[in-house]
């Protein structure tokens, strides 16, 4: 019994303080949905990303890239393909009571011009 007590004291409390306190260090490594630089998005790139998404979370519609956060698995294929146009958003607190709020639209810069 004493062994586990001293081991615990040495390691400290590992329980996260979520939802209070600072975010833990390891939350930065969680797989999260992508965020886009709309200025670097071209139409062709957007269509390519939409094809590559295995979960069907990306869709090109009306000069916008529609991202369904509900369908995204955080696999990271779009981040690999998109180069500097796509990066991890770091958002993992995605719960919602309204399913529609998980559908985000990113304008495709190529179409703006």
């Amino acid at each position, binding site marked *: 019994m004493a062994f586990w007590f001293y081991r615990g004291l040495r390691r400290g409390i*590992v*329980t*996260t303080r*979520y*939802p209070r306190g600072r975010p833990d260090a390891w*939350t930065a490594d*969680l797989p999260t*949905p*992508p*965020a*886009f*630089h*709309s*200025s670097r998005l071209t139409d062709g790139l957007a269509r390519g990303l939409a094809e590559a998404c*295995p*979960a*069907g*979370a990306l869709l090109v519609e009306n000069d916008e890239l529609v*991202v*369904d*956060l*509900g*369908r*995204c*698995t*955080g*696999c990271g294929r779009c981040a690999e393909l998109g180069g500097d146009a796509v*990066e991890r*958003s770091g*958002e*993992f*607190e*995605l*719960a*919602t*009571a*309204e*399913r529609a*709020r*998980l559908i*985000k639209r*990113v*304008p495709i*810069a190529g179409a703006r011009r």
Partner: protein
Amino acid sequence: MDDGTFTDGVDRVAEELARRTAMFGRSLHIRTVDTGSCAVCESEIRLMAAPHYDLHRLGFFFTPAPRHADLLLVTGPAVRAADTLLLKAIDATPDPKVVIAVGACALGGIYQEDELIHGSVDRVVRVDVSVPGCPPSPLALLQGLLVAVGRLQERAQAITLDLDAETNR
């Protein structure tokens, strides 16, 4: 209001559940229902009881009996063969209850509707809260639970995926 609060129906339920856990005189019981998932979402749900996340400190507990449950965590793409199971579990849970769809499968991702599956849980039952992820990490699940009981505000509305939108403002 449009900054992350609830529609009417879930509002009342969330208030009731929030009142219960705030007083800490009653704990909230969670029952998981698997409609054909790969069981990784179940693993993450179970992991919430580990010391790193510890959902017990927030007043949540797991129960195997739907009769004792307040929250149902539904995973899986709603395979048609699991219809009876899901509907019976919902029916067996007394009101007030909250149904949370967990994971990309349950929200309609990866698998599309065909003769074997419905594709998403909200095609079978009314879903109150959706928690995306594949699988959602235990922290995301904790956030989903706290949102469902009204102890946290939603953040989904405020999230934007356009990194250039802020800089362009």
